[in-house]
């Protein structure tokens, strides 16, 4: 019963934040310079045609009215049309696959690296290796991702020819090969953010009585320890990822620009340079929804994993 109420509360929260997101995204169109109808029809269109389209798009109505109309269209999956006449949902559909692959590659690599580093640091707490990892991680926070990407291209990809330098491959082997360098770059940005908090969570777990007992079992206990620690680290990792998902999306935009991957991020940068308002609006909405959903999802899962939060 409490779990159900908890879920309902979360759902309500999600709805409210999503509503806020649509409002923010709607405001984007209002501040954009130029007239959407004129942009669409081009310079040679007559004033009549432009005002006709303005009417069609509802641009001649009051702002609250326009917002409600926008909300209604979004609920029906209609995100408008780009200046070159494509439906924005198509533009998003075209780019979202590459973006998701990048996210996945980055996440897998960053989380594995973070677990290994955090575990090592926690295990050798206050020893030299712990200090070294913590200092290294602190400094790695300040490596500009695009620069790391260029260095990888120049120092690894170009001389060896092992990895494709731009875009994502289509068949599975090519896809994995082409994901390597962007994911490594992504991991360089994301791992430091994870390691710092993960280390202390792991220390908490390692200090628990459970581990003390397992340790006393000797060699047979080490498998137990690994299982126990991993299970307990899952919560903090999810919380951290949920917290940083906005930053992660920003990272993906950088990766796409650096490695010329035609995902949502490149489309966003492109469209905003072209002042393609509806595309910018649509992609921003997708990213924002992704962040909000990931946040709520992360929190919910963590809470459900840990019964104490629900009852508290």
């Amino acid at each position, binding site marked *: 019963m409490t779990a159900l109420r908890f879920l309902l509360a979360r759902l309500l929260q999600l709805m409210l934040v999503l509503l806020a997101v649509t409002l923010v995204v709607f405001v984007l169109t209002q501040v954009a310079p130029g007239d959407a109808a004129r942009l669409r029809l081009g310079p040679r269109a007559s004033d009549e045609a432009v005002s006709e389209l303005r009417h069609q798009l509802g641009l001649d109505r009051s702002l609250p009215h326009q917002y409600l109309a926008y909300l209604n269209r979004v609920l029906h999956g209609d995100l408008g049309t780009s200046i070159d006449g494509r439906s924005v949902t198509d533009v998003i559909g075209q780019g979202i696959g590459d973006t998701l692959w990048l996210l996945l590659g980055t996440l897998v690599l960053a989380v594995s690296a973070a677990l290994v580093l955090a575990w090592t640091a926690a295990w050798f*707490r206050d020893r030299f290796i712990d200090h070294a990892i913590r200092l290294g991680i602190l400094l790695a926070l*300040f*490596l500009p991702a695009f620069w790391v990407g260029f260095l990888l291209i120049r120092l690894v990809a170009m001389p060896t020819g092992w990895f494709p330098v731009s875009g994502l491959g289509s068949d599975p082997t090519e896809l994995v090969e082409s994901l390597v360098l962007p994911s490594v770059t992504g991991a360089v940005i994301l791992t430091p953010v994870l390691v710092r908090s993960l280390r*202390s*969570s792991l220390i908490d777990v390692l200090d628990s009585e459970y581990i003390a007992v397992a340790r006393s079992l000797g060699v047979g206990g080490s498998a137990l320890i690994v299982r126990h620690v991993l299970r307990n680290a899952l919560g903090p990792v999810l919380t951290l990822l949920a917290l940083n*998902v906005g930053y992660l999306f920003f990272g993906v935009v950088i990766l796409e620009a650096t490695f010329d991957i035609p995902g949502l991020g490149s489309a966003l940068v492109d469209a*905003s340079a072209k002042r393609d308002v509806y595309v910018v609006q649509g992609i921003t909405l997708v990213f924002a929804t992704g*962040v909000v959903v990931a946040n709520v999802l992360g929190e919910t899962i963590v809470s459900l994993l840990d019964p104490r939060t629900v009852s508290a």
Partner: protein
Amino acid sequence: MSDLSLIKDDKEHTIRSRPRGNGKLAAGAVIFGLFVLAAVFAPLITTGDPAEQDLLNRLASPSPAHLLGTDQLGRDEWTRLVYAIRVDLRVALLASFIPAVLGSLIGIVAGLGAKWLDTAIMRISDVVVSLPLFIFFIALVGLLGPGEGFLFLGPGELPLIIGFTLISWVVYARLMRAEVRRVRSMDYVRAARSGGLPRWRVIAWHILPNVIGQSIVYFFVDIGLAVVAISTLSFLGVGIPVGTPEWGAMIQSARTVMQTNWWLIAAPGAAIALAGMGLALIGDGLDDRIKS
């Protein structure tokens, strides 16, 4: 990445037998100090004009006349690198200082003010944290363009500062609120309050000095993060306009000659990383000292 995890938790499980952080603090101060000195004395250690072109001597290799060679328009790379400190650090400092003050004030209000105010501020900060603000920034600045200069700021700098303020006030607010709540129930504050001191004096003399430490630590880290973010945004074409001596923009335009003139990429990138690391070391060193 504006979240507390960057500075919290890290130190909680370390045993300290002696005051630490002096080494880091010194190293950070030396690095950062060198950047500041270079920026201040830029005219003395460079050719003097980062915009001066020598079109007939483009893409020159490093030489005594041009320490880091010349770029695609024959501009002296070393000069641009040094003058870029002025742009990057100016924007980064403002983009961290304004949210630090603003966020800290909001945090104090939340920590000491009425319950409803606290709740309202915290809910707002929840929403702000859960929005992809950098994505909004790209969308908005991309659509609006960098704009004109403002007072002593160059074109594109004001949107960056406003954007970063909206993004990072939350960290300071949360940090400050937590600290204030911790301190206000302590004996000496209670004593001061019951002693009949005016409220503002209690805050200014007894609470503030005890809660500001963490914000200062984060402030230094934040400047470094801002340097990285500013250069990243100009790389994406939504920050400081092309042609300005700015590290990210320099990398962006030298990309095309990376095969032959790799140092035009390597140097500005190293400068970003080094500046950030210097600031991070200062922050971390301060943190060590506060906690020990």
